[in-house]
C-alpha cells in the first residue's frame, strides 16, 4: 500500500529507493574487482528506510548500524562522498577514517555510526535526553536490527527512554526473516528466548507498532504516529519493521545473486527468471513498490526507466569520482584523535 502522500512525494520515494538499490549494486560490482573490505548492504529494506527517514526534519538526529548505506542516502548524503569514504579516500565524508562501518554526516543528522551491535541504542537515547534538557523540539531515531535486542544495552536504554519520556524512536528493522521461513509463518530467527520482539518492549510501557517493512504506506503511517508522539511530549515508540532478507545478503561479502534489478519485471512478469522467482515476484520491496505506484497511475514505466538511467549514470560517476580521488596522506592518521 502506498502512503497517503502527494504524487511528488511518492515519486520522490521511488527516486530514493532506486538510488539506494543502484548504489548498492554498483558497490557489489566494485567489490568484485578489488578488495574493499567487508560491508553490509540494505537491499530489500529500502521501503522501510526511505518512507521513515523522509519524514525527518533538519535537526533531527539518526543513529544507524553497520547496515547504514541506505539510511544515509535516504537523508541526502551524496553517493559520491559515500563511495569515496567506503574506498578510504580523502574525499569521503570522514576523510577515510571511518569507512563503511562508521559512515556519518553531521550535516545530514548522523553524528556517528556504531558498528558494535547495540552500540547506538544508548547514544540515540542520549540525543533525545539532550533535546529534552535543552528544550528542543527535535527527535532522535535509532535504527537497528533484531540482533541489537540481544544486547544488554537495549534494556538499559529503553528503561531510561521510558522513564524520562524521551523523544527517541526505536526503529527495529527485523531482517531475520528468511524468505521461505516467513512464507511458512516461521518467526523469528534471532537468538532470543522471546517469541515476539515486542515482548522485549512491553514491560517498559513504550507503545509498539509492528509493520511489514516492505509496505511503504505502513511504514509511513507508523513513523508518522511515532513522530507525532515524540514531538508532542508523548515519549518513545518502538516500531518493528519486518523485512525479508535478500538472497545475496547472506555472506559478509554480499553477492549479486539476483543480478542487477530489472525494473521491467515490475510490469512484465514474463521477464522474471525461475531462479529466485519468489524474490522477484513477491518479496523485493522495490519491485513491489513499483507495481503499486504504476497501478495507482502515478508514473509511467517509461518515466521510471528514464529516472533509473539517470540514477545509474550518477552512481557510475560516483564510483569514478571515488576511484580517482586520492588516499589521505598516511601520516594524517595521527591527526584528529582529540578535538
Amino acid at each position, binding site marked *: 500500500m502506498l502512503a497517503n502522500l502527494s504524487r511528488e512525494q511518492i515519486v520522490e520515494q521511488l527516486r530514493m529507493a532506486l538510488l539506494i538499490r543502484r548504489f548498492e549494486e554498483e558497490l557489489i560490482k566494485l567489490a568484485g574487482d578489488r578488495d574493499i573490505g567487508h560491508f553490509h548492504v540494505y537491499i530489500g529494506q529500502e521501503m522501510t528506510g526511505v518512507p521513515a527517514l523522509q519524514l525527518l526534519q533538519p535537526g533531527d*538526529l539518526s*543513529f544507524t548500524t553497520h547496515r547504514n548505506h541506505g539510511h544515509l542516502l535516504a537523508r541526502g548524503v551524496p553517493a559520491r562522498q559515500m563511495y569515496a569514504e567506503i574506498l578510504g579516500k580523502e574525499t*569521503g*565524508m*570522514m*576523510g*577515510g*577514517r*571511518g569507512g563503511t562501518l*562508521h559512515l*556519518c*554526516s*553531521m*550535516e545530514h543528522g548522523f*553524528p*556517528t*555510526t*556504531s558498528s*558494535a551491535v547495540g*552500540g547506538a*541504542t*544508548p*547514544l*540515540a*537515547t*542520549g*540525543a*533525545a*535526553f*539532550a*533535546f529534552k*534538557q*535543552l528544550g*528542543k523540539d*527535535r527527535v*532522535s531515531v535509532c535504527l537497528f536490527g533484531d540482533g541489537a535486542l540481544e544486547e*544488554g*544495552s537495549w*534494556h*538499559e*536504554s529503553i*528503561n*531510561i527512554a521510558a*522513564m524520562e519520556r524521551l523523544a527517541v524512536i526505536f526503529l527495529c528493522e527485523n531482517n531475520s526473516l528468511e524468505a521461505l521461513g516467513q512464507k511458512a509463518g516461521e518467526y523469528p530467527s534471532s537468538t532470543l528466548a522471546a517469541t515476539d520482539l515486542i515482548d522485549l518492549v512491553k514491560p517498559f510501557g513504550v507503545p509498539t507498532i509492528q509493520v511489514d517493512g516492505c509496505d511503504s504506506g505502513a511504514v509511513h503511517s507508523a513513523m508518522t504516529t511515532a513522530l507525532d508522539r515524540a514531538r508532542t511530549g508523548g515519549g518513545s515508540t518502538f516500531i518493528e519493521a519486518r523485512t525479508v532478507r535478500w538472497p545475496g545478503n547472506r555472506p559478509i561479502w554480499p553477492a549479486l545473486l539476483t543480478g542487477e534489478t530489472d525494473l521491467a519485471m515490475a510490469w512484465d512478469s514474463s521477464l522474471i527468471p525461475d531462479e529466485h522467482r519468489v524474490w522477484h515476484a513477491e518479496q523485493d520491496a522495490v519491485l513491489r513498490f513499483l507495481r503499486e505506484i504504476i497501478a495507482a497511475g502515478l508514473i509511467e514505466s517509461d518515466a521510471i526507466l528514464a529516472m533509473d538511467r539517470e540514477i545509474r549514470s550518477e552512481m557510475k560517476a560516483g564510483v569514478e569520482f571515488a576511484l580517482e580521488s586520492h588516499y589521505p596522506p598516511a601520516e594524517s592518521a595521527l591527526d*584528529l*584523535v*582529540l*578535538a
Partner: protein
Amino acid sequence: MRTLTYGQALVEGLRELIESDERIHIMGQYFLGLTPQRALVGELAAEHPSRFYYPPIAELGYVGTAIGAAMAGLRPIVDLATASFMFQAFAQITNEMANIHYMSGGQTRVPMVLHFNHGIRGGGAAQHSHSPQAMLWNTPGIEIMLPSTPYDVKGLLKTAASTDNPTAWGDHVKLFMIEGEVPEDDYSIPFGVADIKRKGTDVTIVATSLMVQRALAAAEKLAADGIDVEIVDPRTLVPLDEDAILESVAKTGRLVVADECHRSCGAGAEFSAIVAEKAFGYLKAPIRRVVTEDVPIPFSPPMEEYVEPTEAKIIQAVREVVD
C-alpha cells in the same frame, strides 16, 4: 588565601559550572563517594534539581546516554562512583566515546566529563579498588585528569568542562579531606602542564593522584636524611607533559615512579618507558616503580597494605636509587 578541602573545592567547581553554562548537566551524585562530605553534592543537587539526573543502575546505559547527549548539544558531567563500576560501561567508553571524533573525521564532538573514584580506599577488596586510568590511557581519544590537591581539582575540572573532548576524571577517595589554598577568583588549569609539587636535586618522583600526597610526606622524611626529592605531578595523563618529566630527570639523574595502577602496563610503566627511551643517558641508577602489585586487591588489611604503594615503599625506593 582561603583554605578549602578537596571535596569543597570539587563541589564549588561543579556549582560554578552549573551556574555559568546551561549546557552543563550532572548525571549521578556520588562524586564524593560515601565520605562525610557527600552531603555537599546533595546540597548542590537540591539547589539545581533540573540540572541533575539520577540514573538507574545501568552504567552502560547512562554513560551511553551522556555520550549521545554530548553529541546533541549538552555538556554532561557523569559520575560513575567507584571506578570499578566503569567496566559495566566500558563498551560505551572505549568503543564509542573515545572513537567518535576520530571516526567522524572531526565532524562530531563529544564534550563530556566522566568522573570516577579510583584506588584502594580501604576494605574495598577486588571489586571496589580499581585504578583503571592506564586502561583508559591505552584508549586513544580520551583526555585523562588526575588531580591531587584542592587547587588542582577545581582548576582542572574547569578545563575539562570547557574542552570539546571527552575527559576522564579520576579522584582518590583518600584525597577528599585534604586541605589546600583555593583562590576566590575564577581560574582554570590547562591540560598537559605538569606541576612541580616539590623542588629538589637528588631524585625525581613522578607521582599521580593520592601518590603525590604520599610522595610529599616521604620527601619530608627523606629531607631529614639529606636526600632532596623533586616531585613532578603530571596532573593530566592525556595530554602528558613529557618535557617536565624529562627535564627533572635530566637534573636529578634518578627516577622513582609512584602510581596506583598495577605494575604491568600501568601509568608507572609508561612514565618509566618514556624516560628510558628519551632520557636514558641522564640516568645514574635504574628506574624504580612504586605501584600496586599484579594481584586483585585483597580485603584483609595487612594484605591490602602489602600490595599497595605506600609512603614507606616510596622512601625505600628513593633510598635504593641514591645508594
